[in-house]
């Protein structure tokens, strides 16, 4: 409840219609008997009215399609992908450069370091977490091979894993210190994913002895072939994958 005579704030609250019904009646009675105060209040009310009129034009601007929420969402999605993708590439570059330093000292086959750490990292980002968008998607093995051949000449053929129910579904190009790498994700009907990873051995031609490495829940099988290093990354310890490993012959 406001007190009479009304304070400055009460007068403004009246202009802004923020008084309760009781206060409003009280105020109107007061203003009716105090023409000087009423005139001040009226001037403010007029200013409000003029301001509303003056600013109403700004509501009539032609629509800007860039501001449509659908557009904004799309923009956000692209940006976060770009952002995450560059973060992932950075991560790969860091993990690979960590080991090219080692390579430079040892000048030998990679054996003691973690071979194909980038393949495992790419699998986690791309196949498991879905952070990186696919560059290429298909249900057809032939066209996936075609996609890969565009970037890697005379690489190993994509392994045929259809016997274990796995088909290539998506591909993604990645950058490593040695140059462009690619990852092809295979999926089986239950949604299990494994990946085929190709990357150049780099100018010093570091080739890998055939090997296998366990890293957390993942297993990397790696080898070198004509001109490239390869890895298959497989989640270990799942029955489908056990079956796959038995049938797989790299």
């Amino acid at each position, binding site marked *: 409840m406001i007190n009479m005579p009304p304070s*400055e*704030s009460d007068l*403004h*609250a009246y*202009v*802004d*219609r*923020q008084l309760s019904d009781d206060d409003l009646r009280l105020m109107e009675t007061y203003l009716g008997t105090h023409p000087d105060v009423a005139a001040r209040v009226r*001037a*403010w009310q007029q*200013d*409000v009215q*003029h*301001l*509303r009129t*003056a*600013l109403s034009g*700004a*509501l*009539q*601007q032609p*629509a*800007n399609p*860039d*501001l*449509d*929420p*659908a557009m*904004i*969402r799309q*923009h*956000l999605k692209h940006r976060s992908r770009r952002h995450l993708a560059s973060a992932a590439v950075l991560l790969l570059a860091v993990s690979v450069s960590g080991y090219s330093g080692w390579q430079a000292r040892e000048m030998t086959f990679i054996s003691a370091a973690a071979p194909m750490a980038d393949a495992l990292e790419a699998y986690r980002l791309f196949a498991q977490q879905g952070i990186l968008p696919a560059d290429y998607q298909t249900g057809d093995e032939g066209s996936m091979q075609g996609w890969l051949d565009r970037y890697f000449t005379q690489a190993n053929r994509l392994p045929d894993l259809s016997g274990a129910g796995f088909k290539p579904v998506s591909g993604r190009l990645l950058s490593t210190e040695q140059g462009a790498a690619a990852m092809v994700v295979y999926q089986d009907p239950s949604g299990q994913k494994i990946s085929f990873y190709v990357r150049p051995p780099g100018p010093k031609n570091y080739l890998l002895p055939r090997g296998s490495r366990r890293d957390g829940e993942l297993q990397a099988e790696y080898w070198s072939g004509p001109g490239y290093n390869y890895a298959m990354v497989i989640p270990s310890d799942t029955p489908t994958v056990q079956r796959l490993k038995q049938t797989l012959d790299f």
Partner: protein
Amino acid sequence: MNELDEQLRELIPRLRRFAVSLTRNPSNADDLVQACLERALSKWNDKRPDGDLRAWLFSILYRQFLDAHRRSRRYARMLEFFTDRDDAHPSAERSVIAQSSLQAFEQLTTEQRALLLWVSVEGLSYQQVADILGVPTGTVMSRLSRARQALRQLSDGEITRPTLRRLK
């Protein structure tokens, strides 16, 4: 999602108007609205407002404007010497051109413009404005009173001093 987008679409003209009143420049204003909507949509899942969507958007937009303004002012101090735009206070020189209420409005400080637009034009409650600014409602009322007083004087040309008219 679609329901939210519909609500947002309806509010966009109001956001653009508010942004113009802050930036005084339609294309900067749209950049500001875009940044505001991006922020709103990306925060929607964690921080959606309990109450009025419009007040929430105004508050995001206002904070972004202040941040951008602060950043740009850091670099603009030198340049200010060469320009006739000083956003902080209406100067006596500029008040001579206060002929319409819009011109008077444009000479108010950023916060005064925001306050008058929120309360007088958009009809937000004192409490909503207090939440946006993070101050008690009493403070909102006293600042609003000063803003309205300033607008009144500018509209009346009470502080017009023609002898100080800027020569261009």
